């Protein structure tokens, strides 16, 4: 037998010889060098930081992320978001370009790097948190990527080592017309083009912004953003999944766990803005028969559904879903809701109704369906955010937010039908809609319709600012509208608790 020499080396002296052991060797605690302003967050931090830094950095990043989320909820456009976020980023998480020659470049980047990983720990526990975190981090990355210095951005992208096939000169000339038509670029030759599997740029394909040929997408260098961002999201999602699996092993550390738990809790989801207390207290349980009367207090999206339902004695699936949830939200019981739909679908036989529609209504209320659905008592009523971001209605469908889905002229005539007749308001609504600030338009209409009552509660101080904040949920619209119209009937005081859920 041949004696293997290296086995005689003192074990303690060869931790670096065996590659399998190498990963268990002590990390070489050292400062990382950050060459680029942007970071794909591939390598986890290894140096030591104080507990205080740990917490402060994380909170700073959290602030940035929640502001960013706020922007998307408020439907701010790209430019508005950028301007709004500039000051916030400067305050909590400044990050300068190499060219700024700032002395604290490395510190800034280190803070960015570490805080990202701390939040990654805090937000990897549940699927929901992971999805939100990844969405917001992607937004942040996109924001930074866009305002990065062109040259440095290129260096950063090159450093990623993404595999993109260049389109050769000859092919580019051959496809010139198609490339220019698809990308909207006049001069095809001026920039580089890449050829990638279309699956890597679903965003661009979805918006029909690239030329496709036999499964390959021809991406202009300008659209790099979408490629890089997609790659960022993909890697982050994968990493989050891994973090989630590693999380249980972190339990032994009783210094970090409370901080992390605290962080993830303070990141509450405004998505779940609806709570059962949003049902109006002063309103005795509504019935199927009272919906017609109540519908005058409904926001435009629901009024539209109600009118469509009355006109056609039918609503398509998504319309029914949106409307049933809203009705559930105002406190209509399951039995009454079924009665309401049964009566509304005049042209349909009992049998067909029971067969094709009833189950869906019961499902919405959590009366049937999987365990999770029943335990959660069905779905939550849709918020404006949800309604504004879902797919546009197709032919014959009428769900969604009318401010978004209607053409302006038809929207205005619908508003006039519901009693909004002041030219100034209508003009402002047109303006809002053009800027895609749909829900500002909706709030504007609300304020106009209730201006007398709002003035009154403001004057006598019975409603605080929080109770008159921007409306972000159709059920809040209804509730606030109903309460305002029934002032002095002894239920003004109860506004508070429901409203708090909004924030």
């Amino acid at each position: 037998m041949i004696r293997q020499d290296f086995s005689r080396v003192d074990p303690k002296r060869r931790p670096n010889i065996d590659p399998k052991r190498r990963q268990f060797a002590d990390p070489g605690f050292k400062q990382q060098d950050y060459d680029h302003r942007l970071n794909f967050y591939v390598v986890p931090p290894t140096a030591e930081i104080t507990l205080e830094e740990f917490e402060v950095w994380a909170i700073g990043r959290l602030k940035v992320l929640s502001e960013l989320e706020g922007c998307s909820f408020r439907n701010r456009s790209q430019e508005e978001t950028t301007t709004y976020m500039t000051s916030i980023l400067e305050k909590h998480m400044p990050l300068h370009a190499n060219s700024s020659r700032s002395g604290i470049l490395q510190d800034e980047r280190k803070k960015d790097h570490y805080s990202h990983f701390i939040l990654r720990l805090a937000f990897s526990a549940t699927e929901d948190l992971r999805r939100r975190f990844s969405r917001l981090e992607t937004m942040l990355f996109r924001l930074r990527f866009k305002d990065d210095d062109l040259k440095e951005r290129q260096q950063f992208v090159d450093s990623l080592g993404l595999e993109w096939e260049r389109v050769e000169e000859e092919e580019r000339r051959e496809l010139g017309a198609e490339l220019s038509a698809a990308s909207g670029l006049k001069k095809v030759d001026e920039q580089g083009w890449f050829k990638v599997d279309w699956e890597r740029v679903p965003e661009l394909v979805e918006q029909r912004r690239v030329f496709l040929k036999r499964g390959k997408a021809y991406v202009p260098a300008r659209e790099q953003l979408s490629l890089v961002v997609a790659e960022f999201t993909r890697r982050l999602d994968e990493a989050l999944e891994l973090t989630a699996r590693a999380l249980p092993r972190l339990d032994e550390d009783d210094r970090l766990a409370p901080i992390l738990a605290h962080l993830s809790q303070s990141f509450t989801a405004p998505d779940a803005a609806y709570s059962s207390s949003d049902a109006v207290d002063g309103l005795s349980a509504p019935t199927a028969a009272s919906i017609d009367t109540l519908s005058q207090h409904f926001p435009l999206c629901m009024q539209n559904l109600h009118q469509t339902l009355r006109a056609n004695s039918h609503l398509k699936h998504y319309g029914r879903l949106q409307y049933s949830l809203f009705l559930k939200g105002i406190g209509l019981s399951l039995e009454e809701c079924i009665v309401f739909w049964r009566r509304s679908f005049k042209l349909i036989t009992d049998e067909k109704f029971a067969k094709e529609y009833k189950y869906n209504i019961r499902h919405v209320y959590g009366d049937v369906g999987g365990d999770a659905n029943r335990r959660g008592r069905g779905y939550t009523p849709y918020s404006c955010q949800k309604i504004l971001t879902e797919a546009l209605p197709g032919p014959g469908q009428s769900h969604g937010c009318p401010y978004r889905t209607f053409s302006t002229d038809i929207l205005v005539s619908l508003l006039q039908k519901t009693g909004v007749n002041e030219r100034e308001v209508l003009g402002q609504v047109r303006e809002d809609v053009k800027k895609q600030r749909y829900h500002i338009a909706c709030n504007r209409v609300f304020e106009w319709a209730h201006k007398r009552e709002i003035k009154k509660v403001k004057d006598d101080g019975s409603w605080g600012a929080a109770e008159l904040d921007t409306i972000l949920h159709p059920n809040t619209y209804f509730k606030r509208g109903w309460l305002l119209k029934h002032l002095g009937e002894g239920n003004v005081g109860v506004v508070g608790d429901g409203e708090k859920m909004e924030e």
Partner: protein
Amino acid sequence: MPHSVSPEASPVDDTQLSQTSAQPLESAVKEEPPTSPAEDVPMSDAPSLAEPAKTKVNLEDLFDDEDSDGEFSSSVPQVKAEKSPEQEPIKIKASSGFADPEVMRAFYQRLFPFRYLFQWLNHSPSPTNDFMHREFAFTLQNDAYLRYQSFPTSDLLRKQAVQMIPSRFEIGPVYSTNPRERKSLRKASAFRPVSKELVFDIDMTDYDDIRTCCTGASICLSCWTFMTMAIKVVDVALREDFGFKHILWVYSGRRGAHAWVCDKRAREMDDQRRRAVASYLELVKGGAQGGKKVNPKRPLHPHLDRSLNILRSHFQTSILLEQDPWAGSRSAHLLDLLPDQTLRAALAKKWDSAPSRPSSSKWADIDALASSGAMSSLNPTTLREAKQDIVLEYTYPRLDAEVSKKLNHLLKSPFCVHPGTGRVCVPIDTRKVEEFDPLGVPTVTQLLGEIDDWDRENGGEEAGDGSQKKVPDWEKTSMKPYVEFFRLFVAGLLKEERGGVKREREEGDPMEF
């Protein structure tokens, strides 16, 4: 029991036995009896006599198939169209409708091409997870809906279909574990859809605001043209742009069409990618209140440009002449879509004075008036683009995009019988899409009649010569071309899949045994 197989089915001889692998037997034995229909499904029409007959059918299936074509290994449990040795005529009375359980039973027993369906979904000759973990959902005669059915072999799928006689069944995704065992899993997240064909659904109801000939569920040849146009446009986009090769178009039985994109690449797409493809193809947007429904970016994307070229010729004939969409007062919508105020006013005046003017003349009027010189304010490019948009609004495919966007969406299986019309959901050959006639698609009753006719004509000869090859029942009917087409489609798909496997194996680690 005229059309179940008689108990004295062909005796099993030894040679056949030895050739049959043990696999189907085992799986058949292990398989717990599929949720007995007696428990949850009232089968008032199924006489108890059917029970022994059924078991017999299965036994026979396990051992048949000597004469299957050589392309696929004989060790695979294969379902052949039913052999009923005595060629018993199916006594379908003229009065018996297509919803009659006995008619449906005979259909599943004798005509439904389970074997090709299996090969299509399985992507390999021997059963793989692609088939075994695939969800099927049965809609029973009483409209009960059974989800999460799955089958180890095509025999068992066939057996359950014959037993329960669903009015139709749907095909869902392949799951990470067997759908029947989903409740026994410790973690719910271990049960998730993994792959499914990319599917498209085009339904004529979405065209209701532009078709004038029929509404709702009814169709005629002139509105089927919408479907022809849609198939052409979507098919070419999927092939040319996305590079998919194996696209199966299926008539949905009444007024629509489905597409199944079966390429491996398409099957493995996640929801985001599916959404991307659907949105790429989607153009007509906005509900009844939306006003102008087509607002593409300019210059037109190559896909839209190509589609426009395909659709333009149809627009002249099928839309303007046949549909006549702007007859009488309906021209108001056309006016809404035009860009210039003065042009609109002039046209409105002209058309009001001639209410019977046909759409084709109205369409020509637009250019005539615009070029007459009176419209100095009108930009010719704007008008041309508006006209392009109109052509697209009236011809571009209207997909039910939600169906395509989700990996776990179920879609009715090809070759099912549409419960409303009795027509079989046959594949559509895209090379001859213009010739496809939805009203000429055979109904289930017609097909069963054809078997009888064939048997009467050829009955004598066959009985005389026992060695002659048995003719599967579908070959005796007008379903033959459709099944043949499907067979070739599946063979093409299998060939590519198999090629892939072989290459993988060759490239595999040589040290791994």
